[in-house]
């Protein structure tokens, strides 16, 4: 059974499954994309953002 047939039988055959897949895929992509960009951004700006330096001041008061 080829991949396209498998895909058709598992995802596209029933509309309820298809719509659910779309929504779940959008949700998963949103989280994954956001995580990927944030990881890159934090690595690029290592040591510059507040979360990188806040430990120096966290216990300074109270």
């Amino acid at each position: 059974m080829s991949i396209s047939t498998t895909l058709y039988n598992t995802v596209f055959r029933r509309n309820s499954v298809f719509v659910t897949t779309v929504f779940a895929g959008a949700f998963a992509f949103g989280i994954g994309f956001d995580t990927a960009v944030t990881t890159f951004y934090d690595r690029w700006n290592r040591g510059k953002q507040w979360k990188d330096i806040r430990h120096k001041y966290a216990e300074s008061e109270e």
Partner: protein
Amino acid sequence: MLRRWGAGALNRTAPLPLFRPKNVLRLPRALAVRNASTASSSNAFESFLNSRVTLVSVSLFTAGSVAWYTHLYGSLPFLPQVHASLDSDEGLHPPAYPWSHMGLFDTFDHASIRRGYQVYREVCAACHSLDRIAWRNLVGVSHNVDEVKAMAEEVEYQDGPNDEGEMFTRTGKLADYMPPPYANEEAARAGNAGALPPDLSLIVKARHGGADYVFSLLTGYVDPPAGVEVREGMNYNPFFPGGAIGMARVLFDGLVEFEDGTPATTSQMAKDVVTFLHWAAEPEHDERKKNGIKAVILFSVLTLASLYVKRFKWTPIKNRKIFYDPPADKTH
């Protein structure tokens, strides 16, 4: 170029018949001449020079160039001009400094923002307000919440009215805005020999050159050059338009003591306070750049996908061939 063959073109266009018989088909002369003289290339060139279309288009091109130049540079080309003002009246253009947040992906250096806030608080805040920044804005940017609460509580704010309808003073809280050094603009002017210290909340956005300009201004105080008179109470700064600025040089080496041990040189303090002011003008900066990365990636993918889909859908239309199959003549 225009001058060289402009005269000839004008001479040859002169004997053109201006009025023609009405029953003659009105063809543009250029078209008629070109059709009559396609046999020889030199004749074609002659007719090109003679044509009215050439004259009109060259005139339009010339007028357009002059208009474009005038619009771009504000003066007619090739005409000498005399200015009553000096170039120094515009202020020196600041050099472009390599800010740590200048790149497409770069956030602010938040340790620098913290030091810059200290410089603002200890130096600038004596004269300059920061109206649009509240204490809460510092939380999670340069200070933690306990530090900001402690700083806010050192300031007294007027509040009210209370149940008796009277105003009262209370200690500051996170939601309060930065206290202004003067009660109003008149008091600020009176305290500074008539010059109003501008609010610094948006100063980086509000000046040409932005952060580079503010940094250059803070570090650019020099003695006035020979021949330049600066009035009493004014100071010379080549980066300030006009050269004479009411604010004196305020940043000197060792003026503040940074808690992280950074040597407080003049340029270090200026760089830190400008970074702080840049954050004050664009507090959304870090988040904006992150969203920009996401938007560029997503829209690039969507653009490529739509281009692919367009080509995919149009392929059969672009590649089809239309044959004309004439009906067989069955009459004989």
